[in-house]
């Protein structure tokens, strides 16, 4: 039987399907009660209005049921607030491989991060321009590479 932790951690983000919720850093805890086998999963949203949260909750319950943990509850917490610093190195590599430029590390607690040069995820060139501060999902902005001319998504540092 797959452990509850492994089953929940393998759930992919419904809007960025190359990365798991664990790699994205939104899976905060998986607790299994020893006696009953009841599982409590704790997640946190990337953005308060993220419309994918309902799907993520349903996907977690489905994955747990399939792994032999039918008694599961998914809790949502807002504190501490998610940061792109929580995206794992494996997650960053997968984003880049899928053509999504990963966020620069934030490190400190400044509210608006300085945008450093964003490298094109296709050709690696730092010669890029922001086309739109907002993109296809709440967590992304739209950029274009001036070297290879490809437009690409950039996960905004938060």
């Amino acid at each position, binding site marked *: 039987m797959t452990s509850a932790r492994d089953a929940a951690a393998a759930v992919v983000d419904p809007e960025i399907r190359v990365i798991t919720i664990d790699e994205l850093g939104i899976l905060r805890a998986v607790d299994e009660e020893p006696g009953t086998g009841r599982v409590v999963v704790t997640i946190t*949203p990337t*953005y*308060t*209005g*993220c*419309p994918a949260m309902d799907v993520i909750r349903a996907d977690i319950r489905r994955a747990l049921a399939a792994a032999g943990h039918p008694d599961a509850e998914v809790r949502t*917490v*807002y*504190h*501490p*607030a*998610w940061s792109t610093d929580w995206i794992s190195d494996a997650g960053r590599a997968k984003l880049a491989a899928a053509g999504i430029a990963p966020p620069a590390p934030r490190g400190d607690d400044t*509210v*608006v991060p300085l945008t450093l040069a964003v490298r094109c995820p296709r050709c690696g060139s730092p010669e890029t321009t922001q*086309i*739109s*501060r*907002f*993109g*296809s999902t*709440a967590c992304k902005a*739209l950029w274009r590479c001036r070297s290879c001319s490809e437009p690409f998504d950039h996960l*905004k540092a*938060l």
Partner: protein
Amino acid sequence: MSRFDFTLAIGDDALIAAQRLGEWTSRAPEMEEDIALANIALDQLGAARLLLTYAGELEGAGRDEDDLAFLRDDREFRNCLLVELPNGDFGVTMAKLFFLAAYQVPLYTALAGCADERLAAVGAKARKESAYHLDHAALWVKRLGDGTEESHRRMQDAVDEVWPYVHELFNPDPAAPVDPSTLRADFDATVSAVLDEATLTRPETGWTPGGGRDGLHTEHLSYLLAEMQVLHRAHPGASW
């Protein structure tokens, strides 16, 4: 204001701002801006849901976020007048968003450090999003203000038109989890810096309409609520 009234008020600000911004969807001057305004509306809605859910719990009368959003009449809404004003042209929309964000950033930042854990969590989360809204609106205010003669004239008109409505946001209330009057200095500093760079003039303070926090609104709110609430009222409990 009690904790319930305060939470309801700032939750209503976010909800009504979201509904107004959503009106731009498919109508913005360019595709990128359409997406931007929809994204900002979504952030506002996210904060509104958390705040209204908590307000319902504080009230203890069994009302959830949907009851509060869809089953109250205009006199029961506590949002500031600023957010219910019509969108006007793009300049007016940006003036409204700029002033709202310049207020919400210090509000949420102060909330993040307040004694109430739930409000602190919302503040810590929402302030990052509001900072991005402020950045976005400030860029447009500068671009239009310091743009062509026509864009400068219309951006100044927009700032003049909306300015009277900002004062209500800072009415003193020492009993609230965050006293709104403590946010004014931060707001003024942000506004002055951006308007200066935009070559715009900060209006003199004259007329200071208010009443939103007491449920006394402009007629615009009723029309907005009619559209926002019609589905839920016609089909109670409807879900996707």
